């Protein structure tokens, strides 16, 4: 079967159990089993090619742009791992069918399991290292879901997150490592990379690449100091633990080290890092395992220890070490999966996994006893079982390994680790199955149905067969070893056999087994010592680091982000001043191209007023009314400035805008306290003054320097001047720019203005509907109201002025294209006229005389402007293309009709509508007569002082 199918089957198959959950538990498990079986058989069809020493390849281009292709490769190493993954997978599926209770969602479980399985198969079959990375990350993700499968358990959630964080870190490191590796070789294909040992090892980037890749391997394979996640992942249901932690996930790191062995191993860096990490992990794991009371925790740490053993063997960099590693991978997968499943059986039947509450199960669960004993004895390294053989080879290899110039360091530690390994195996058998039968088991234990015990029992067959007749496994082990070695080393001549003669390894083995028995004998005092020994708890350290990071984040973020606006503004100002200054110092700045103009005394006096008003504003800003007046002065001075600089249009606009805004702000002021309270300390105000001054001076300096230098080319405004009449039909360039050259900008701006008005309306609506509405209803003005609400003089005057103002507006609008003026200014002027009516005669009077709702006026304005723009499409011209013509209707003079004028009508209408709508909204706050529709349940403001006194 094509390799694609083998990889794809579990992924596509993963959909089935999720969808079939309703079909029943057996059907769900059955379909999962079938999918896996199909992949398994597909794998086996490739066996002849593998046995012939061929490498099966398959390739599809996926992302050639990034050097990533879907290239798969099956050699004996990949085949070996795939066989373990799918073969043990089949047993696990059968086991899980029985193990999961009816409360567990089975479809979900098997979906995750198949996803995980597919990802694992993908890892071992990948030829492209980037593809391998993808599958690698997918195992992290799917194992996260599997480990957290019992999501109601906090330990499950924590364990899953920890596993994902640690393996995710490794995965990210590996992305870096693989990219560097690919960069060195110039290809991401393993088949190419594996041929380039010398090139890689000679590259200066070899060490970083090695470290990053090893980070990935070590985190995945739970090597010290990343071993701590694995025991916490035991919160998962037992089938998950059995699958992930015997044959698959944790073996991924081992697989990758084996895969990369030909090109990465053999250097001092590889040797020191990998061997010592493996050695430490082996010893540490074994020691901790002995003192764990939870069966699964014991097995977890024993897994950690055995992974260390394999890592160490790969680290030595010799061919014999590699062969021993391969052999132990096979052996460990068999006995460890059997042990995990048995632990699950015990948990399932006795409802506890605590060794202290067990004991005496030998007679109650004889089948389980048999399975566990054989598997555990194999793990302890007892002859005639497979564990013995590979452990012997490990000790033999350890004996030849010189680490840190010490010939005894590795052998002693290896023996020490083996001793504890033997001890926990003996404890597992002794404390669980031997001893008196108890009467306080949480549930009455007995052997389960065959569905549960058969899968582990099947795994015991290879344990015994290989143990008794190692030559059965030898061809296969050598075949796989050949793949690991590649062209980097010769196949070792040694054979797998039980009796090697009286070699040091045998003595070490004997020491370990005997020592293990002694350890079990003195277990109780040893445990006491262990419990009283203070030791760093990796999980605590991990959590401390995570918490410290979160604390650091909080310490960094929260004070910065405390909601004080002045602080944000200060940061922004400082940033731009510093960045600007820094930029200023980097580049060349030529000499000024022209001199400073002499200052006119009139100008200086105007400038002086502007500055005085601004500074006065800073000092008087607590008095809101006074500040408003000062703002008015500033605006006026700016308008005068425009006049002086010969920009009458701007001056008119600025002036009318000033009038309207001041009126609107006065209305708003009516509802605010007279004075702004003091909110910041003196120190803060000093800081703010400093920041503001820096910003101001910087802008000044910048403007000063720019004004002394000419632009590099004539500006586009010269085109505007030249074409205003010719192309735009108007002599007032400013207006032609607004409605024609850059009418598109104006279109955007009238929308902004309209939205602003609609927002003011929406905000007042919201306010009046909320608690503020009640407050307003009960509001007592802080100053007595004038007896004469609508002074006669003012009413008469404003009504008389209304037609005049309208005429002026009309005139300014019409003349706009050629003289100062235009729709925007006209709109403001007309609005002022109408505002006067509101002010003088009152809101109700004025609005009663208004026929059109302001919303509609705004909408009409935007529509007119918009359709003027769209209109040009009908003559196949771009948006907003204008046209004009001259007409003569006697007795009038010849005059011009321009589509731009229509656009200006739109501007005019939206300005009038926007201003009036804002005004209407403000005044609604003030109207008490027709009370607004209050959505807030309360019409009384309880915080009103005099009401309280009345009670």
């Amino acid at each position: 079967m094509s390799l694609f199918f083998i990889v794809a089957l579990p992924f596509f198959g993963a959909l089935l159990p999720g969808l079939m959950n309703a079909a029943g538990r057996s059907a769900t498990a059955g379909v999962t089993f079938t999918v896996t079986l199909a992949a398994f058989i597909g794998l086996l069809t490739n066996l002849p090619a593998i046995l012939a020493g061929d490498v099966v390849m398959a390739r599809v281009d996926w992302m050639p742009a990034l050097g990533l292709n879907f290239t798969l490769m099956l050699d004996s190493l990949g085949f070996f791992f795939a066989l373990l993954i799918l073969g043990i997978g089949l047993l696990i599926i059968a086991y899980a069918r029985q193990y999961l209770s009816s409360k567990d969602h089975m479809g979900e479980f098997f979906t995750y399991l198949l996803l995980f399985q597919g990802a694992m198969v993908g890892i071992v079959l990948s030829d492209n290292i980037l593809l391998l990375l993808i599958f690698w990350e997918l195992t992290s993700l799917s194992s996260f879901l599997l480990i957290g499968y019992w999501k109601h358990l906090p330990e499950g959630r924590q364990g899953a997150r920890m596993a994902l964080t640690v393996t995710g870190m490794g995965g990210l490191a590996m992305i870096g490592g693989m990219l560097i590796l690919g960069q060195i070789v110039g290809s991401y294909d393993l088949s190419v990379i594996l041929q380039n040992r010398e090139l890689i090892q000679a590259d200066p980037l070899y060490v970083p690449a090695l470290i990053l890749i090893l980070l990935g391997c070590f985190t995945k394979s739970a090597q010290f100091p990343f071993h701590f996640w694995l025991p916490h992942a035991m919160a998962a249901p037992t089938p998950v633990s059995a699958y992930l932690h015997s044959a698959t996930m944790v073996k991924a790191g081992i697989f990758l080290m084996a895969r990369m062995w030909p090109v990465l191993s053999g250097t001092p860096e590889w040797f020191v890092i990998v061997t010592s990490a493996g050695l430490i992990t082996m010893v540490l794991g074994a020691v901790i395992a002995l003192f764990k009371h939870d069966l699964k925790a014991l097995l977890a740490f024993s897994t950690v220890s055995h992974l260390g053993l394999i890592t160490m063997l790969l680290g030595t960099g010799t061919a014999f070490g590699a062969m021993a590693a391969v052999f132990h991978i096979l052996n460990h997968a068999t006995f460890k999966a059997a042990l995990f499943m048995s632990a699950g059986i015990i948990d399932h039947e006795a409802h506890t996994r605590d060794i202290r509450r067990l004991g005496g199960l030998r007679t109650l669960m004889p089948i389980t006893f048999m399975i566990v004993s054989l598997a555990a004895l194999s793990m302890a390294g007892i002859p005639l079982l497979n564990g013995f053989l590979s452990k012997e080879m490990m000790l033999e290899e350890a004996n030849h390994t010189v680490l840190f110039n010490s010939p005894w360091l590795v052998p002693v530690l290896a023996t020490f680790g083996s001793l504890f390994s033997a001890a926990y195996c003996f404890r597992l058998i002794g404390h669980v199955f031997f001893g008196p039968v108890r009467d306080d088991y949480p549930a009455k234990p007995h052997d389960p149905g065959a569905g549960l015990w058969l899968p582990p029992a099947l795994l015991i067959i290879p344990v015994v067969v290989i143990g008794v007749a190692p030559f059965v496994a030898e061809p296969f082990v050598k075949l796989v070893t050949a793949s690991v070695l590649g062209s980097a080393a010769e196949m070792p001549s040694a054979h797998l056999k039980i009796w090697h003669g009286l070699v040091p390894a045998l003595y070490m083995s004997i020491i370990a087994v005997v020592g293990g028995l002694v350890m079990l004998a003195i277990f109780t005092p040893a445990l006491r010592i262990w419990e009283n020994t203070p030791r760093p708890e990796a999980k605590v350290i991990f959590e401390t680091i995570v918490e410290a990071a979160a604390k650091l984040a909080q310490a960094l973020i929260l004070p910065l982000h405390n909601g004080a606006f002045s602080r944000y503004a200060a940061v922004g100002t400082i940033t731009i001043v510093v960045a600007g200054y820094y930029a200023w110092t980097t580049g060349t700045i030529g000499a000024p191209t022209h001199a400073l103009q002499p200052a006119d005394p009139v100008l200086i006096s105007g400038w002086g007023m502007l500055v005085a008003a601004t500074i006065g504003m800073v000092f008087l800003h607590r008095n809101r009314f006074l500040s408003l007046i000062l703002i008015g002065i500033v605006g006026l001075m700016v308008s005068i400035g425009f006049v002086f600089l010969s920009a009458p249009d701007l001056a008119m606009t600025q002036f009318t805008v000033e009038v309207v805004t001041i009126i609107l702000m006065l209305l708003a002021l009516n509802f605010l306290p007279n004075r702004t309270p003091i909110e910041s300390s003196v120190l803060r105000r000093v800081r703010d003054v400093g920041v503001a001054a820096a910003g101001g001076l910087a802008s000044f300096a910048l403007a000063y320097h720019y004004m002394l230098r000419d632009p590099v080319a004539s500006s586009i405004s010269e085109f505007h001047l030249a074409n205003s009449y010719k192309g735009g039909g108007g002599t007032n360039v400013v207006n032609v720019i607004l409605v024609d050259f850059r009418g598109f900008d104006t279109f955007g701006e009238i929308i902004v203005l309209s939205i602003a008005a609609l927002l003011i309306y929406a905000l007042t609506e919201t306010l009046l509907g909320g608690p503020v509405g009640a407050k307003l209803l009960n509001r007592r003005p802080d100053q007595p109201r004038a007896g004469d609400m609508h002074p006669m003089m003012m009413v008469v005057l404003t009504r008389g002025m209304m037609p005049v103002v309208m005429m002026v507006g009309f005139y300014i609008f019409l003349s706009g294209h050629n003289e100062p003026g235009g729709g925007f200014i006209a709109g403001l002027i007309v609005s002022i006229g109408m505002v006067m009516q509101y002010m003088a005669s009152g809101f109700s009077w004025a609005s009663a005389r208004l026929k059109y709702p302001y919303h509609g006026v705004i909408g009409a304005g935007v529509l007119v402007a918009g359709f003027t723009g769209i209109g040009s499409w009908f003559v196949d011209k771009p948006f907003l293309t204008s046209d004009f013509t001259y007409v003569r209707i006697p007795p009038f003079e010849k005059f011009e009709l321009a589509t731009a004028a229509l656009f200006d009508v739109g501007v005019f209408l939206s300005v009038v509508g926007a201003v009036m709508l804002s005004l209407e909204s403000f005044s609604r706050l003030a109207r008490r007569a027709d009370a607004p529709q209050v959505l807030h349940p309360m019409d009384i403001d309880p915080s009103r002082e005099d009401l309280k006194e009345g009670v």
Partner: protein
Amino acid sequence: MSWYLTLPLVIPFVASIIAYLLRSSPLGAWVSIIGSGLGLIASIALMVVVLDAGVIAGQMGNWPAPFGITLVADLLSAVMVLITAITGFAVAIYALGDITERQAKLGYHALFQILLAGVTGAFLTGDLFNLYVWFEVMLIASFGLLILNGGKEQIDGGVKYVALNLISTILFLTGIGLLYGMTGTLNFADLALKVEEVENQGLLTVVAMMFMVAFGVKAAVFPLFFWLPAAYHTPSFAVSAVFAGLLTKVGVYALIRMFTMVFDHDIGFTHTVLLWVACFTMVIGVLGAAAQSDFRKILSFHIISQIGYMILGLALMTPLALVGAVFYLVHHIIVKANLFLIAGIAKRLTGGTEVYQIGGLYKSAPFLAILFLIPAFSLAGFPPLSGFWAKYIIVKATLDLEMWFVAFIALAVGLMTIYSMTKIWAEAFWKPHPEGIEPELKTLPNKAAQLIPVAGLAVLTIIIGLNPEPFVVFAERTTAQLLDPSPYIAAVLGETP
């Protein structure tokens, strides 16, 4: 040609006016949906044309560039317009189930369409001042959406948002004035040519910094990001989704546009600054997220952190890095908008957004859980989802330049992102609800309206993830245009001068 350019803008304007007129009727929401749908069709049409022609330009008012205003669509603009339309369409549908009658009455749908128009306009314009106008349109519309029918919290957030953005606006305007003073032009293409003639490079760099800060505020980069977390967690979820997806990206887009086309005179300085900004932004954002426990606040800080990656792509300025930035932009908009939409559904079901106080979603709403898993792990950069490729390309670009430390930061930030996403996942989804609530999807008032857009965006993430090749090839073409603007300039100014 100009049809293709103006339609994506005119449609939302017209839709907004109609929606406003119908604001009191349930039809208003449908106008918004139809408008967004038509806008989507128009953007697809634009994309098709641009894919074929490379760059198209339209002169508004038929004034030749650089004297009038030019709308230009190169591949970057076209893809941004398209992704805006996609997000807009999704959120418009989602709004059916999220926006209250009262918000609609106050003009929600009209403001939403205006916002889309503003964003689209910013992507399409080829004129600096016109870009400013679109920024204004966006700002006012987004302010409106923030405070619409809001309480104290919303108004507080909204006012800060506006005030800080106004600082950026003032800087932007000043920068435009100064740049115009130096070059006498506002048109991007013309600027690109004129800037080369400027002798006072130091002054030019100062202006460049002003633009960097102005756009940096919009993009919420370090140290100018304050407004974002202050405001994004307050409005309704549909609003925050479109903000999260689109608004900051306009700033990123503007930075990319200006700092590839106009301000490339002193890359050694400007892009080094950007590099620092990028690193700090990535780190501070992700740390900020780690410090939060509110669904939306976590997501908000992650926007900042992810913006860092995009800026990083720009800062490195190699073809691959820019490919990464473009890819990241597109991926991020889809994913982030979707996460906010999901947060909205989660809040409706569980009654809160504080992750430690909610839970149980996995069990009672497994479909939502799957829908969350996809964008969340895409954001965290897991394959085979879109985020993996985005991160992968950026990291590869840094490694190609042998910037080890930068690569380390990019990867470490990725790890912290995983941490935050699993926090939400473990607390809001896996953990049983502390009050025992078992929130089911069928309790949603308008289930289809809320789930269809979420599912659609999730599918898009998967499509990009599983078949990234065409997207990468597209990003490569885009990058080629960015690094060699001559076709852009030729399209805008007519014959190359």
